[in-house]
């Protein structure tokens, strides 16, 4: 008997102000899969992530999280199962790295409960996983963008979710940190749905790619199946070439502009 899916979209539609944002979404995500959401701006990637955080309600259809309708979860119950790492615009007031990571305990702690020795061990462990061991007392605001993203990943680990959502986690990061953040996310061995703009990063690190266009899934499969020349040219409306990435044994996409081909 196979594992129950972590996420199941059943004929999900989303309309906002009478505008169709997502239509006929039908897919399941199995435990441990690292899924990339790809697509041009306005394709519905962020809206899909917001549905999974209950920020939006589907206009029709339903979303199941571990077999249970997502609408039935309270905000705290959902936070205990779904973690989010999104872009931060530099925080105005500074906090220590430990303060930020310990926020991951919010869904699991009653208001009056203090941090236990076990929590502090878990804090250390989470920071080790993201390569920031012994940086608990560092100022969060003074870390580089890549380090801040890793602290947020450590916070997500602390949250002990069954599903991790990454909302454009590599934006504004330099090449080194782009790879590092995704490598760490993959090594966490939890189910991940990541909205990613860079197709080559998705190709390299994600088990499964969902290509969205105008609110619909137009391709769903591994990198070889989804990253095809015709499909990408049609979806992104610019010419592209596919070859083999010499580093990762996965497809590599090169884009041109209108008159390049």
């Amino acid at each position, binding site marked *: 008997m196979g594992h129950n899916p972590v996420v199941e979209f059943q004929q999900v539609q989303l309309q906002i102000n009478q505008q169709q944002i997502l239509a006929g979404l039908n897919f399941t995500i199995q435990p441990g899969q690292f899924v990339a959401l790809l697509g041009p701006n306005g394709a519905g990637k962020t809206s899909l992530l917001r549905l999974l*955080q209950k*920020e939006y309600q589907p206009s029709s259809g339903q979303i199941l999280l571990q077999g249970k309708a997502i609408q039935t979860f309270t*905000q*705290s*119950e*959902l*936070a*205990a199962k*779904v*973690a*989010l790492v*999104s872009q*931060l*615009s530099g*925080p*105005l*007031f*500074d*906090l*220590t790295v430990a*303060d*930020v990571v*310990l*926020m*991951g*305990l*919010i*869904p699991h*702690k009653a*208001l*009056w409960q203090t941090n236990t020795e076990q929590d502090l061990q878990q804090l250390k462990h989470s920071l080790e996983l993201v390569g920031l061991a012994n940086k608990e007392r560092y100022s969060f605001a003074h870390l580089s963008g890549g380090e801040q993203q890793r602290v*947020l990943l450590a916070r997500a680990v602390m*949250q002990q979710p069954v599903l991790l*959502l990454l909302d454009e986690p590599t934006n504004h990061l330099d090449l080194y940190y782009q790879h590092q953040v995704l490598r760490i996310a993959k090594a966490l061995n939890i189910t991940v749905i990541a909205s990613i703009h860079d197709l080559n990063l998705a190709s390299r690190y994600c088990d499964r790619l969902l290509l969205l266009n105008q609110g619909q899934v137009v391709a769903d499969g591994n990198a070889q199946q989804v990253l095809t020349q015709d499909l990408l040219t049609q979806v992104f409306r610019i010419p592209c070439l596919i070859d083999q990435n010499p580093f990762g044994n996965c497809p590599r996409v090169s884009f041109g502009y209108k008159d390049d081909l």
Partner: protein
Amino acid sequence: MSKVLLAALPVSLRFGLAILVLLLICIQALSTGSIPIAVSALFGLTELDEMQSTVLWQLRFPRLLLALLAGSGLALCGALLQNASRNPLADPYLFGIVSGAALGATISTIVLPEWQLLTPLFAFFGALLAVFLVLVIGASSRWQRLESLLLCGVAVSFMLSAITTTLLYLSEPFAANRVMFWLMGSLSQASLTHVALISPLVFITLLLGLLYRRQLDALVLNDESARSLGVHVQPLRLVILLLCAAVSAAIVACCGGIAFVGLMIPHLVRSLFGLSSVALLLGSVWLGAVFLASVDTLSRSLLPDQELPIGVVTSAIGSLFFLSMLFKYRRG
């Protein structure tokens, strides 16, 4: 540098130091004034004469308690509002609370002079009216955005001030003097009733702030991130705003408008003790109390036989503080 030095001290020593400073400030406040009281008399080592005893227990003691509470309360509200709104300039008085209190006091003084004893109550409800107006007007422009709430506060503040000024302009010449108390701030009318009114509000606000410490920390990053951790962002923000409104309204009703404490103390605390909510809230309560008790002692002793309104002294110190911050930022 100061933060590094403080961080090097064990927590128990830091608490001990904080209590020692508070104790010294209290001793100074109780012994200083037009009728000096020896420190030894405060500890029962020497006798107090009847006049000293009256001054100590009926004037200075309630006044000191009120200064400690008002300072703590204003700084606590400033810290909570700044974190909840992610705006370092948020301050309880930006929501029109002082203007509302002044209007309430003006109405009771001029329109209903026979109700003079209830003036603090009128000031309290005036302050609450201001916050209510800010919330109602802000609600129509998505009050979830704290920036629009602050702008509403400024607008309501001007509107209520205009009404107060018109009432004063049309009233008898001495009415303005009586209302000046609410505009300039003073602890001269302190009583244990005031202390009993403010202390539960400050205590409840501090307790809730400490209980929701993790949620408050989460709000500092951004709303989306806080929601993903299960924080009910808008209800939490509304509760914080209402609690701060009640605390500030009670303080303004008893002490008048004491500016800059809510704005300045949390900034100082962040630079001294760090930035997590627990350090910020406890530090603000302590430093707010120490600051206002010291300033009150100063305002009673700066001029011979005369007392400066405490709001004037806090405003003067506050403006110097923010100018020094400006120069610090310019130097990078």
